[in-house]
């Protein structure tokens, strides 16, 4: 790898209270790379996302973005610097209208008019519902709205946590098509997914997490069913 990775975790330990969840995670994402973070329940996937997004301060180790050590930076500072996180569940504000949700995306430094234009061009359905409360839309539409932030604000890194949760397979496929489109624009993406198959088609690299450590990292195409089964079911 000639260019330095856009995002790197070095020996990160983190947890909640006295309980450690991550026991020294090493992870790196190259520029324009799509990395899938896989692992069974409780492996520490969401905690990893929390550490990268700045919501959880690691107890040890370093978070390095574009060569700079940003360990301990706040989530909002990282977000303004070009890190876009779509958290688990629905990454929207249910009691704000679609338009107000998009207004919240302007903290990234983009103009509201640009954001609206790009969003409505990509998802015309959101344009029709711009004055509707986001929480009253369907699950798929809500997830579109949360992806809209990633599409419209042109982030350097995109973190996706369980995008497919609670959605119909058809909609999941549609959403991942959008993720592929975002990646094609050169955005580096880290995708967390329990349904490994859905995401391996999009990803370049896959990282397998178990018990808070990286068990395996390699080309996405090389991860076979036997490896996954072993990790998920315990080998």
């Amino acid at each position, binding site marked *: 790898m000639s260019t330095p990775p856009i995002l790197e975790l070095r020996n990160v330990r983190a947890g909640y209270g*006295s*309980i*450690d969840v991550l*026991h020294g995670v090493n992870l790196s994402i190259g520029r324009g790379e799509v990395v899938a973070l896989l692992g069974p329940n409780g492996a520490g996937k969401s905690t990893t996302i929390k550490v990268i*997004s*700045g*919501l959880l301060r690691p107890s040890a180790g370093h978070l390095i973005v574009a060569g700079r050590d940003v360990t301990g930076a*706040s*989530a*909002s500072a990282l*977000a*303004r610097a070009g890190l*876009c*996180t779509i*958290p688990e569940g629905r*990454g*929207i*504000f*249910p*009691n*704000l209208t679609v338009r*107000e949700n998009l*207004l*919240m*995306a*302007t*903290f*990234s430094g983009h103009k509201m008019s640009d954001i609206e234009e790009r969003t409505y061009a990509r998802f015309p359905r959101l344009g029709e519902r711009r004055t509707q409360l986001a929480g009253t839309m369907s699950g798929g539409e809500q997830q579109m709205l949360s992806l809209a*932030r990633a599409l419209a604000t042109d982030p350097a890194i995109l973190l996706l946590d369980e995008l497919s949760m609670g959605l119909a397979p058809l909609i999941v496929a549609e959403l991942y098509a959008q993720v592929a489109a975002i990646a094609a624009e050169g955005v580096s993406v880290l995708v967390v997914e329990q349904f490994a198959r859905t995401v391996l088609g999009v990803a370049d690299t896959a990282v397998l997490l178990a*018990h808070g450590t990286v068990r395996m990292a390699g080309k996405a195409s090389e991860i076979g069913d036997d490896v996954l089964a072993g990790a998920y079911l315990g080998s």
Partner: protein
Amino acid sequence: MQELLTFTIIGLSTGAIYAVVASGLVVTYTTSGIFNLAHGATGMLSAFTYWQLRFDWDLPAPLALFITLFILCPLFGIVTERFVMRGLQGTTEVVRLSVTVALFAFMIGLANWIWPNDASREAFLKFYEGNSISIGGFNVSWHRLITFGCAVVVAIILRIVLYKTRMGVAMRAVVDDRNLTELNGGRPDRVSMFAWGISASLAGLAGILLAGDQQLNIEPLVLLVINAYAAAIIGRLKSLPLTFLGAGLLGLLDAYYLMVSDESWFPQTAFGFSLSGVRSALPTIVLFIALLARPQSRLRVGTTKLREENRVPEWRTAIMGAVALVVVVVGISGMLTRSNTLLLLNGFTFAMVTLSLVPLTGYAGQMSLAPLTFAGLGAIAMSKLPGNGNLVTLVVAIVIVAIVGAIVALPALRLSGIYLALATAAFAVMVSKIVFNQRQTFQTGNITVPVLRIPFVTIDTPRARLILASVCFAILGLIVVAVRRSRLGRRLVALKDSPAAAATLGMSLTRTKLAAFAISAGIAACAGALAGDKVSPQQYEFTQSLPIVLLAVVGGVGSVAGALFGGLLLGGNSVLATIVPTVKNLTKIGPGTVGITLGRNPQGAAAQIGDSFRPLIEQPRLIAISAAGAFGIWALDAADVISHWSFFVASVVWILAVSPNLPALTAAAPGRRVMAGAWLAVGMAIATGVDWSSALDATGKRIILIIGLVALFGVGAQRVVENSPRVHTASPDLAGLDTDFSREDIELAEQKIGVVL
């Protein structure tokens, strides 16, 4: 018809003030989840500040207004958010509410200190005093028009800020999802600060308008907020338009009631009871109804992570504590002067009222702001029932008030958290406005509660009453411990931990809540019935209940010891004020200052102090040494070898500095043991050997001395013994996963789950 118009205008301008206050409450509640009981106090401080600038220092009105509303108020709001409220994330609603109570007490103390009541001070004038215009033949002062105009302007500005600006949208976004706001690049802390700043300005505006309309007095300005609660609740604590509507209705209701209450057909009494207090209770009646009309909140599923945890009290500890308490009180009561005896007695009364909150708030997690109301009812029952204060009368009084408590709880059962707390506040105000001013209750403003009569014992001196109070507290404390250890106690805790889980297990939430309220009301009633003296209705007002709730939480509302600590602290605050006149003003803001620090230590002070004694309690041999030492000091005093003050100094040093160090001392390496032991012995020798009643001339100096001795010798000895190697404490959750189990891990795990023999 003209009269109707007149009263409509009066009502709308009153409503305008309510609207401004209530909108400020809603803004902070929605953005930070904290219901700010101190909101009215902020308005009061602001009114005084404005008075200072405008009328005392003669600044022009626009400048004074600008400084107050656009500089000082926002600054105050921001400082409050940054240094007080921000530490409260993740604490329970009880703690959060208590902190605002603390702020409330702090601000009242501050105002009393800076602006002592002085009849000769410059008057607080209305805006454009003396100017009025005629509307439909009725003269409306400009002040009223300005008040009304302010509410309209506030409504428009809030609407624009919240819906058209990014900051406003972010304020609403924080309510929805704080983390997501951060992930969007917003800064929730800044948003909260902004909200608190706005809110303080709104409170300030209302305070100034109200002070012009009425008078510059602390009480009515502070209590304004209670009336505004009703408007905020009508707005469901989130909708501003509904809040404004509610405020308008409230103002009109008040004005129309005033209009018709003069009519000849209007009843002045009902069933022989006077209705004169109804008008002032009107907003709280509306509040109560508005609360009951709220849709029932769904039971929350999922675990709430609490920062507090309380151990189940053990019988051995409880009985030992109860006996020790009575022995200590008997021992020292002989040495106290009459006035100090009465102060300590007062402290025990507070402690009993505080104890009433332990089962209700500490165990069951139900917040009540009306403990003293039940105490007042208990006092009335004790004095009105036949029997002149014998044991049967006491029991009947307790039972009656317990039933009242359950009946009051009945309509409030569907409420929880802040809504329940407000309902009890409404109840407290209603009772003091309507019940306590009846001929049948406090007819002359005072009633005498008879002293409890027990067979074969006469209780006539203050000392005897003090001992009686300590015995009663000990008995009530044991009853509370018994409740906690029973089936009912487990239900109470289940109700607090997860109502949803408890309900799905088939437990009746209704019955459990009723029981909690009845027990709590009964204990409070007992405290009231034991008053044994002249009492006045002012003692049982809502505002007096607030410091009790506060100190219960400060002491640690989850334990009996916490209640004792909190109650004595409240009583002791007045002790401190009388014996240390130089710091008298500081004690006014004392309780508030203590409470504000709660965010850092939500479990309360007693738990913290208790933790330092825990190793001691686990070793009977050391308890014996500790008790023997205390008895020895007492014996020295009783034999007149040392003075009372030397006794006091020595026993405090013994209890706070030596005893907690005993377990570490016995466990330490021999060399260190000798060193630390010698150090402590020197401390005890100084404390006991010097005759402090003649060596120091002021009580204040002696108190400072005691603090100094405890710090020097207690902490010093602790330093020496604690240098010994620490015990290995890995998290038991990870043992076996990371590393192999060791003997220590197993011991630690056993200790954590309580199977150590």
